[in-house]
């Protein structure tokens, strides 16, 4: 009898040990590993309104009279490259802010947005993200809107320059004529007092097949009519290009992708605009 109860005790011990092993496995590997769906629009730890928060940070910094910002794009699946990118940008003097110009994610999944954010949040300068076509996949649009900006088109004025960030991913809307939103752009590019120059920032360049052809001409008209637009800044095509499809004074510039380890530094000094490519 004594022996038998010993066996039971032993196996009960074993059982308790193994049950605690399972419990430890389940809970100590932290609730962050619990995933309800890869298509979750958010989880407990998802940051919100990053664009608005970073814009407040930007507007609160005094800075100097040089405006210098980074144009980066297509961070999709570039996790191996982002550490170096962040160090490089942080080591560059006088960066006011950083633009992540679309295709934040590859598949529109929350996990991808979170991975990217875990790198970009290490930037010393505030950053703002613009939506890309890949970010429209699955629930990516909702993830973007919750994490970055409810409005896909938004603008801000910094040191007398106006930055108009907008959605040009026309193909994702079946070229239905609403993207880019020309009415919005018309109102944003009306010349206004105190603004000495403008930038149009969007993921898909107007010269690309993913931009709504029907809107190409009018889009250019709005920008050229303003007269003070320094450049149209795009990404999407994974190489650095400069084109003048509308006028010789309006460059359309694309930045190479982060995956290819490139970004652009854009500067405006004494109303003069210049930019250069950085390989890292």
């Amino acid at each position: 009898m004594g022996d038998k109860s010993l066996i039971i005790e032993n196996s009960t011990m074993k059982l308790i040990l193994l049950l605690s092993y399972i419990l430890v496995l389940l809970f100590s590997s932290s609730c962050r590993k619990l995933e309800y769906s890869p298509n979750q629009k958010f989880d407990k730890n998802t940051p919100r309104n990053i664009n608005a928060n970073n814009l407040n940070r930007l507007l609160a910094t005094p800075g100097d009279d040089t405006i210098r910002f980074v144009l980066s794009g297509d961070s999709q699946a570039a996790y191996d490259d982002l550490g170096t990118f962040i160090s490089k940008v942080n080591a560059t003097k006088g960066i006011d802010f950083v633009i992540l110009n679309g295709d934040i994610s590859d598949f529109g999944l929350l996990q991808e947005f979170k991975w990217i954010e875990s790198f970009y949040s290490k930037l010393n300068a505030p950053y703002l993200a613009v939506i890309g076509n890949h970010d429209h996949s699955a629930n990516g649009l909702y993830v973007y809107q919750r994490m970055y900006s409810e409005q896909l088109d938004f603008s801000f004025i910094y040191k007398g320059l106006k930055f108009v960030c907008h959605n040009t991913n026309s193909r994702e809307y079946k070229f239905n004529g609403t993207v880019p939103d020309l009415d919005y752009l018309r109102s944003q590019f009306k010349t206004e007092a105190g603004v000495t120059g403008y930038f149009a920032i969007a993921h898909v360049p107007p010269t690309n097949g993913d931009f709504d052809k029907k809107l190409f001409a009018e889009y250019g008209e709005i920008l050229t009519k303003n007269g003070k637009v320094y450049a149209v800044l795009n990404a999407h095509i994974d190489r650095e290009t400069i084109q003048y499809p509308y006028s010789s004074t309006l460059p359309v510039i694309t930045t190479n992708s982060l995956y290819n380890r490139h970004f652009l530094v854009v500067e405006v000094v004494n109303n003069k605009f210049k930019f250069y490519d950085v390989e890292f």
Partner: protein
Amino acid sequence: MVLCVMFFLSPKVSAQKFLMPKTAIVQRAGSIGYNSFGVGYNLFKNKKGSLDLAWGYVPKSKGGRQDIFAAKFAYRPLSIKLSDFAVLNLANPGLFVTHHPGGKFHTTLNKDQYPAGYYWWSSAVRFHISASTEIKINAPKMLLKTGVEQVALYGELNTNELYAVSWFKNRENLPLLDIFKLGFGLKVYF
């Protein structure tokens, strides 16, 4: 006549028996819903394989309302007898497919909207690999009357092909464990 009726009935009876689920699961997380519910079958003669069919949901407050349908296959190569009434299936590899219904998700690309191969994956269907650990105990007497023979508690790690691709392209800086997600559940064997 009677023979005729018997002829038509008998396969039906065996089909019913065949279709009768042998297990039922309730699961939390594990990429198939906030909560999911399913029924399952034993596979192979040694009953080491299993197939679970589950429906899961995510409530609005937990990540946006959505439904997920899952077909999960698992194999239990190792059965460790812990005591007269408990068995541990320590490491069980598995595969599962999930379907995410809804207008936001595509199974095949809309040909009018995209050139062929524009996006190579389907946002509505995910392919997962998994590894689970399961501890199974004989049901207490009071449960035996309800037909439940064993009750199991399991924990399961999984990843999907899109996470795997992300990891494969970034093996230097993306820890492999980062792409594995957790779920746990209760399984009853009839």
